[in-house]
């Protein structure tokens, strides 16, 4: 099923731009536990076989890559993690066990920070991640489009938004420096980030930033980040938004939904509710949701419509039903975000997270 108007087919002389998918590791791909020192240690020494991935994530990554390649474009999958490289072996093996095709993985040299006595850098990830994102960007084809995936444990929404705004040319070096200093990024790292930022091309390349609401952070918290940031409660929701964007096929959404049902105890009702939640939050229009839901209902993945919803669907088709949110949120933002407001809100939360054992 076609979810949106097909783009003009790429001409042989000008291939479609590659798709760059950047993933955080803990709480985005893996269900890592580091709420307590004991769980942190357990995570550090866990074998690949014992690591648990977030339901549906492996199928989503595979589908993103496969769909892009089926459409004649390259899809590159990179992981950027603030975990130390010492756990790299187990992570690579886990990726292999899950059959996830990836093109690169970066870890944070925590031991190096300890050796240099930079203990603050152990818990501060904004500078590290921004630098790695810029490095990855410099190595990628200049016309690459990007999808970024993170979670609500760390400052992923802030890091990714800063990155996207710099790429788009919405944020200059001076305000970026001020922001990084305000969140107490190591001055040496600030200089490195600014240097890298000035070298990346001014291209609005980030299409969407997906935040896995693993902590169930209230979605309203992310309003300040604008419509580019999409907080989702499960990877079925993420898949639905990606399908509407044309990045996944309906079959991929079906597969991810099926995996959630078969392996994680999801029911048709839970998937129904997830879909409705996206509509209510404005990431999906009601007609788009209806178009998507019909074949999923036919496969039994979603529950059959009640007489009330059948009536509503008929009204939608006739154009007589105008739900309160008949338009989806616009994706692009006009300029840089209000980082003053974001920091005023994020920093107390970050301090709280740090105090409770989480990573700020």
């Amino acid at each position, binding site marked *: 099923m076609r979810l949106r108007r097909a783009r003009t087919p790429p001409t042989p002389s000008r291939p479609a731009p590659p798709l760059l998918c950047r993933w955080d590791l803990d709480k985005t791909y893996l269900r890592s536990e580091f709420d307590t020192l004991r769980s942190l240690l357990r995570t550090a020494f866990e074998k690949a076989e014992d690591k648990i991935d977030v339901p549906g994530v492996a199928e989503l990554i595979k589908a993103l890559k496969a769909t892009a390649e089926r459409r004649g474009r390259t899809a590159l999958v990179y992981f950027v993690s603030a975990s130390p490289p010492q756990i790299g072996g187990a992570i690579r093996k886990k990726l292999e066990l899950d059959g996830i095709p990836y093109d690169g993985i970066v870890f944070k040299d925590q031991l190096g920070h300890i050796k240099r006595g930079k203990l603050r850098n152990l818990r501060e990830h904004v500078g590290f991640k921004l630098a790695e994102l810029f490095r990855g960007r410099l190595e990628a084809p200049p016309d690459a489009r990007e999808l970024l995936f993170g979670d609500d444990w760390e400052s992923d929404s802030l890091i990714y938004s800063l990155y996207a705004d710099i790429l788009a040319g919405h944020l200059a070096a001076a305000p970026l420096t001020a922001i990084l200093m305000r969140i107490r990024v190591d001055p040496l790292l600030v200089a490195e980030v600014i240097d890298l930022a000035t070298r990346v091309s001014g291209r609005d390349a980030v299409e969407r930033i997906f935040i896995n609401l693993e902590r*169930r952070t209230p979605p309203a918290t992310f309003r300040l980040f604008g419509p580019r940031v999409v907080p989702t409660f499960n990877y079925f929701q993420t898949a639905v938004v990606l399908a509407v964007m044309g990045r996944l096929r309906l079959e991929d959404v079906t597969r991810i939904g099926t995996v959630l049902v078969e392996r994680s105890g999801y029911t048709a009702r839970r998937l129904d*509710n997830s879909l409705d*939640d996206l509509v209510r939050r404005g990431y999906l229009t009601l007609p788009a949701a209806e178009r998507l839901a019909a074949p999923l209902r036919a496969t039994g993945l979603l529950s059959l419509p009640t007489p009330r919803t059948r009536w509503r669907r008929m009204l939608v088709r006739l154009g007589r039903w105008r739900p309160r949110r008949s338009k989806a949120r616009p994706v692009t933002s006009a300029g840089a975000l209000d980082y003053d407001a974001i920091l005023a809100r994020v920093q107390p939360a970050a301090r709280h997270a740090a105090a409770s054992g989480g990573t700020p």
Partner: protein
Amino acid sequence: MGGDHAPDEVVKGVAQVSLATDIECVLVGDESRIQAVLEGVSYNPEHISILHSRDAIGMAEEPREAVKRRDASLVVGVRAVAEGRADAVVSAGNTGACILACAKHFRVLRGIRRAALASVYPRQREHPGQDSLALILDVGATVRCDAEELVQFAVMGSAYARRISKVSSPAVGLLNMGSEEMKGGETLVEAHRRLRQFPGINFVGNVEGNELVRGRADVIVCEGFVGNVALKLIEGVSEVLYDITSAAGERRVAWRLGLRLLSRGIERLRALTDYTQYGGSPILGFEHLLIKCHGRSEAHAIRNAVKVAAKAVRDRVPAEIADAVTASR
């Protein structure tokens, strides 16, 4: 959308339930208002759906007229349960409207003449293992009733206590103005006579007002008018006691120190008498359940009420009542 703090506290309560349990909740009311509250709190959308309705019945509205409005959230919710789209209703709204909406859309259990509004309240334990809560019914669905109806209340209350409080043979008392069987007028004397002879009911005789909060009976049976006054009196006394204690602490330093020493005990007393701990009051006698929460209910109380409703549905309380009524005929 009913209750003094609706929809905010109701939505927050349901959001808490969605995070902690696998109970499927359907929020009935203005979708955009509900969504606005939801997005500001932690919730799990997989366990929440919204049934949109534009109208809501006010707490002070005349119930008989109010339940005629088909798009009122209470009526929409009750109809959804009657049509099998949900299993039970939880409402903090207008009590009269709740009872009338149930009467209008739910079928009364076979053999039951009148539904009853039951409520749990804290009481003293007389022996170890005894539940710290007792059930009193009716507390407002009726005003006056006859002996047969009081007997049916006893049957329904016993069935509810068996399922929810897990008391195999709940002690049933008849609220009266004296312990002697001839006290209380014609209706109560007749009810006493019937209950004493009733098979399957562990009738412990008349219970006086001062015995309400003691552990003699697990289920107290009375007319709605009396039950409502008794329940509100218990609530009022506990609130006043707490206020007096707090005020005492402000007067003298020595009293404040004493209260500080007793603080854990006072908190336990407060927790015991706090209506928010017990969820809500079930309306018994219909094929489906409605759990009526206090009008002042906040998120915590709503959360507990939803849990009580889910427990009652899982434990098949209406079926238990129907079986008990059938067996008694």
